[in-house]
């Protein structure tokens, strides 16, 4: 089956940026049948809330990776919505114009339910690109997680912006509650990246969201292609649904061949 990995970090805390390392990663992906990887950037290199200059450095690195291997890597533009509309729009414009960024990546600079997310929605509309929001159930965490997006927060952002396509990251991290929060929101997709492969959850997501709304992803290098691919192959799904999850949904969402 054809596979696109919608959630990767080829450079992770500055490691992996050498051309030889990127070649190794491509060989690794291809050995598992992964045709393309979406590069989300070295997003925590400067902490959870990078400033404009730090974002430019991260995005230039992502863009450089994409330019080095344009047929394999596809970059997303990493943003901090707290920096305001002007900064958000300037950086998205720069990423799309210079590097052909195909989406926006958000991490933990702010919560997806916060008003500053309107800048992101505006950028998505203007450039017709989706946004991938790091999401994780806050149930098991104490105070201090206010800038992390619980699945309910990401779902609220999707509900407020039905014309914006949103990827809620980390199926196992958002769990069954996340799937239920996403149910019925046609503009919200869930990627299966991150965390250990909890059995039955992919089937649950397909049952409640439809195979059209589940995307294959790993969170490489934190996770392993073989495990994530095996989890999809081992799930009780039709091959048609697997093909949607592995390739078709992301290809359609990002206009990739």
């Amino acid at each position, binding site marked *: 089956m054809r596979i696109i990995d919608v959630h990767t970090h080829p450079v992770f805390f500055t490691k992996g940026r050498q051309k030889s390392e990127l070649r190794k990663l491509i060989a*690794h992906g291809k*050995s*598992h049948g992964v045709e393309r990887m979406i590069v989300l950037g070295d997003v925590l290199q400067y902490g959870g809330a990078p400033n404009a200059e730090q974002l430019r450095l991260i995005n230039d690195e992502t863009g450089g990776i994409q330019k080095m291997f344009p047929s394999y890597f596809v970059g997303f533009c990493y943003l901090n919505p707290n920096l305001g509309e002007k900064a958000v729009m300037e950086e998205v414009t720069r990423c799309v114009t210079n590097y052909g960024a195909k989406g926006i990546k958000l991490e933990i600079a702010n919560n997806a339910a916060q008003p500053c997310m309107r800048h992101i929605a505006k950028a998505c509309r203007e450039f017709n690109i989706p946004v991938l929001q790091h999401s*994780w*159930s806050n*149930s*098991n965490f104490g105070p201090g997680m206010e800038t992390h997006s619980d699945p309910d927060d990401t779902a609220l952002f999707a509900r407020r912006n039905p014309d914006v396509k949103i990827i809620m990251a980390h199926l*196992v*991290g958002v*769990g*069954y509650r996340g799937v239920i929060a996403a149910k019925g929101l046609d503009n919200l997709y869930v990627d299966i990246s991150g*965390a*250990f*492969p*909890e*059995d*039955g959850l992919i089937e*649950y997501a397909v049952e409640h969201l439809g195979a059209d709304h589940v995307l294959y992803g790993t969170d*490489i*290098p*934190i*996770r*392993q*292609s*073989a*495990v*994530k*691919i*095996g*989890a999809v*192959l*081992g*799930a009780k799904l039709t091959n048609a649904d697997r093909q949607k999850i592995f390739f078709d949904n992301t290809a359609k969402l990002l206009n990739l061949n």
Partner: protein
Amino acid sequence: MLIDTNVNLGSWPFTFALNRSAAQLTKHLAASGVTHAIVSHFGAAFQPDPMPSNRELLAATKKSNALTALPVINLRLANWRDQLAECVAAKVSAIKLLPTYNNYSLRDKVVGEFMTALNETKLRLVINMRYEDERHRYFALDMKGLPLADLKPFLKRNPKTHMLLAGAMIPEVRELSAKFKNFSIELSYCEWINSVEDLVKLLTAKRIMLGTCTPLLSTRGEVDKLRFSKITPKAMEQISSTNAQQFFNL
């Protein structure tokens, strides 16, 4: 031959994990290429006495060529010597401890007494570090992983006991491997882009076994972690079967 050293019967109350019969479990494992499994029972983690679940486990696996029982001893209970005696009488090859789920510490005095008793048997020891990742488990089961602060002195106090750690994560393995050689690991909660390759470098293949934490994790995903690793054929054979055969005396 593929031997899975971390498989469970019974139900887990906070997921939709399937509660399979022994026959169903064998069929499920075989679909991912697993030919033999070391099996415990979740009831030992949740019920006040592990022995009813252990007996159910022993009965379910007795006639199976594909499943080997790994019963749990609960050291928080006054009758742990009776539990151990019953396991010895059942001719099992190993027993498992669930310190966190059974509410005791490896620093407790009773653990030292147990190790003395265990050394008088030929049983091997498996210590469970976790069944779930505490970052995404269901909120109603507030269970942390086994503290390394408890495990390290335990490993130090028992240098001649080579034990299997179930559910260890890679950072924990790295920390333990710096000081101790008297443990092996199974792979279920070890994941990184090249986890098996890196762990072989860290521990050698001799100290690694396949484990899937079925039915909580995807059996196929966990098996493929090993199947697609780029290690030598000898290392693959050791991790797939030889180490488990020797440890569990299969």
